[in-house]
């Protein structure tokens, strides 16, 4: 009879630690691979599991290996059909013989794919990004709490009983107080039954029986006195209300959906906001996001409408800014909230309105905002013409004046999907601590 051990219930993930170490090691490579992949694929794909092809660089394990292209070797191979000694076989380009003995011992694990979970992808993707200047911390009264386990307590509500602890205490107490066990009592009871069943009963016999009965009664009394579970044993899981640091922040997403924005422009803008949205959700689980879209009139919409609904019309950019101002006044007082905004547009605007936009920013919004990013979506052919010059659409020219004056204003151009991620990184890259403005 051998020793059988059932290990199936052993704790799982014995090599989780190793896997994590490997991921840490491969981090740089993975980051690069994911960026490449996302650049070529859809941005929304970031929010999913990823198959990442992992080049061996950085995680290779070098050893002294014989070089395949030197020296003289001999291979013994099975399955000869037509060869005779002295036959010559032309080598394939990779070296014919190498498919022989080499393949058996060779390492084929150099390039391989592996699957990253959604969390791992996002972590890598948004590493080193942050909202700049998050300074107004927790001014509001309404502090959020989170329940956190904090040891055990002797009092509490019945739903929180910790059975393990309770039973452990009860067990210890029963041992300490010598609570008679069931087996012990059953043994005596059986003995009594056996003696009672015996026909002849001498005096000694009866006396012994009586002793046993007394003993049993004593044990039973004792057993009643020492309960199985006593109130003193009971332990409850204790919870603590842990205040959450409340960095209240709001991000305004302003998007132009007017007729001048073609499918391509809208697609680019949406991609940018999808990325922004993912980033905010990932990094700041308590941030408000306000979606505003505009044609010749602006309105606050929900996430779904913002990303998926189709609408078009003329263009008055300033309506979006006014809508934003209105929302700020109504819901997000600037002394309590960190306010961020990102605006995407193709730069087309009704004549005269661009100046109004600039003055709105100058006079009101820039004072309220922590950070304002403007992304202009341009034609691919225009990239060469405009480049980095100040020339451009009326809105671009108007915003240049704002850019000059406010350090917390950023503007940039996007022409093709591949630009989005670099621009995004530029806008939200971790910045050296800026002096705190009052």
């Amino acid at each position: 009879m051998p020793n059988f051990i059932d290990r199936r219930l052993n704790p799982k993930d014995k090599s989780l630690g190793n896997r994590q170490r490997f991921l840490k090691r491969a981090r740089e490579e993975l980051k690069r691979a994911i960026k490449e992949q996302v650049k070529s694929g859809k941005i929304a794909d970031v929010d999913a599991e990823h198959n990442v092809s992992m080049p061996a660089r950085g995680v290779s394990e070098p050893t002294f290996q014989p070089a395949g292209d030197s020296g003289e070797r001999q291979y013994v191979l099975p399955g000869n059909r037509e060869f005779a000694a002295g036959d010559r076989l032309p080598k394939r380009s990779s070296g014919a013989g190498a498919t022989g003995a080499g393949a058996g011992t060779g390492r084929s694990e150099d390039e391989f794919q592996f699957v990253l979970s959604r969390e791992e992808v996002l972590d890598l993707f948004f590493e080193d990004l942050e909202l700049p200047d998050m300074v107004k911390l927790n001014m509001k009264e309404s502090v959020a709490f989170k329940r956190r386990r904090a040891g055990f307590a002797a009092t509490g509500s019945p739903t929180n009983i910790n059975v393990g602890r309770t039973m452990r205490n009860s067990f210890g107490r029963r041992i300490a107080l010598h609570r008679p066990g069931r087996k012990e009592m059953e043994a005596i009871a059986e003995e009594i039954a056996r003696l009672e069943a015996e026909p002849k009963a001498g005096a000694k016999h009866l006396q012994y029986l009586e002793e046993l009965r007394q003993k049993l009664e004593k044990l039973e009394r004792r057993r009643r006195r020492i309960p199985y579970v006593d109130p003193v044993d009971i332990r409850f899981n204790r919870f603590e209300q842990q205040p959450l640091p409340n960095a209240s922040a709001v991000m305004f997403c302003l998007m132009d959906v007017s007729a001048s924005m073609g499918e391509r422009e809208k697609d680019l803008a949406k991609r940018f906001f999808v990325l922004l949205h993912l980033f905010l959700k990932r990094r700041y689980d308590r941030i408000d996001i306000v979606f505003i879209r505009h044609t010749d009139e602006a309105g606050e919409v929900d996430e779904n409408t913002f990303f998926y609904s189709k609408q078009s019309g003329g263009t008055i950019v300033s309506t979006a800014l006014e809508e934003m101002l209105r929302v700020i006044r109504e819901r997000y007082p600037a002394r309590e909230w960190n306010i961020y905004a990102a605006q995407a547009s193709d730069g087309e605007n009704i004549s005269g309105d661009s100046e109004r936009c600039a003055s709105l920013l100058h006079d009101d919004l820039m004072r309220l905002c922590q950070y304002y990013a403007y992304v202009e979506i341009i034609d691919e052919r225009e990239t060469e013409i405009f480049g980095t010059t100040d020339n451009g659409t009326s809105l671009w020219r108007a915003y240049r004046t704002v850019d000059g004056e406010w350090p917390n204003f950023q503007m940039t151009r996007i022409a093709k999907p591949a630009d989005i991620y670099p621009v995004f990184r530029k806008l939200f890259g971790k910045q050296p601590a800026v002096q705190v403005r009052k």
Partner: protein
Amino acid sequence: MRGDRNAKKGCGSNLLFQGSDWNFETLSRAYDAIETVALDNLGLDVYPNQLEIISSEQMLDAYSSVGMPLMYQHWSFGKRFVFEDNLYRKGRRGLAYELVINSNPCITYLMEENTMAMQALVTAHAAFGHNHFFKNNYLFRQWTDASAILSYMEFAKKYIIKCEERYGTTAVEAILDSAHALMDQGVFRYRRPPRLSSEKERERMRERLEYEEQTFSDLWRTLPTASESSDPDAVERDVMERKKALNLPDENLLYFLEKTSLILEPWQREILRIVRVIAQYFYPQRQTKVMNEGCATFVHYTIMNTLFDQGRITEGAMLEILQSHTNVVFQPSFDDPRFPGINPYALGFAMMQDIERICVDPTPEDRDWFPEIAGSGNWRETLLDAWANHRDESFILQYLSPSLIRKFRLFLLSDEADEKYCEVASIHNERGYEAIRAALARSYDIGANQPDIQVMDVDLLGDRHLRLQHNIKNGVLLEETSRDATLRHVRHLWGYEVSLAGVEAETGETLYECSTADIEE
């Protein structure tokens, strides 16, 4: 025999199991029956067995930690896990049915997915075949300590965790990386590890070294020595003495670095030692792949057939067993896309069956080739003797018969790097048998196939430049990128410059020389 079987089948109660489900009761009944056959019929001698049931995920875990139940943590194991996991999930590769550890008691892992027939097969294969081989083969007996390995691994794991806590994961990882790179050069192939000198003696040595360091005066160097350059003999003698003191040349790079490196802390030395011990532990397994698998396959095949003949296994179960047996010993031809090299199971099993045939029913040819065993009839003793006293190389050299060479249609291909063609040197005919046998045996000689790299010289009181030498055989050089990367690892452990010279073994001509000083980081 046949009638006997039918009679036993008639009563029906003799079956070990029916259907494909298993439970611990049937497992242990099958085990007992297998044990009886293994010990009484085949005369095997095994360590006590411990059978552990694991899930597929645990099997993957075991894979990635080189099959040890306890292993320290390192990213390379994670890499292997991810790799295996991928293959498995995509269905490109199935998992092994079992995994067996050379320990005492011998631990065998059985997969929970196996059917009862498979569990029986695997028990015979691993718990008796491999187990017998581990206990009796001379390489394992001499080089590994089956009863101590598990507790050593436990120590190693704890020790490395402790080091990580104390010195940080990065520092430990760096040492392990470097040590892993030299694992192949971390085994003693020819001599036993020198006995540890007693603590007192080592203490004295250390004191002496310290004294020499303290009293070192640069002034002495300027004194004219009588035989500075005039007497090459004295210089030569110095070098010889130095080498003798350090026990050079040394084939075991890890051992040399562990003992001699001047920059390593005690805990780093201990880590090198751990890696070295593990490398040494696995060294016999790498030299006996064909024999080990052949032995296990032969044992399971014989035991299962015996049980079937006794009427203790149903025909359905036997068919399943035979099907997986044939899968295991399948040997595709060299031009088959599935050809992965010579299948050690196929070769080992075929050779052992061949030995049985030669003993029992030899042809005149066999009598010529194997006069000692042909027709002797006692194949059991012959096999037990072969299992105990050979490794792959010597086993093939001794027992590969012409009839088996014909059966596998083996041919010898010689490949010179400079030529545009490969030449068929020998085929399965009278003139070719010996050449093929010798070449096949050589291909299983790890010592001959792995780069032979030795520590040649180091002047501990001088520039401390560590000189390694690669003895080039048949003109096979080293792959340059990995060579340079590995040399950097040596430098990391040694702390001073390291150089490697490639010397043609036959002519003594130096073919290349490289030093860490020239390799940019």
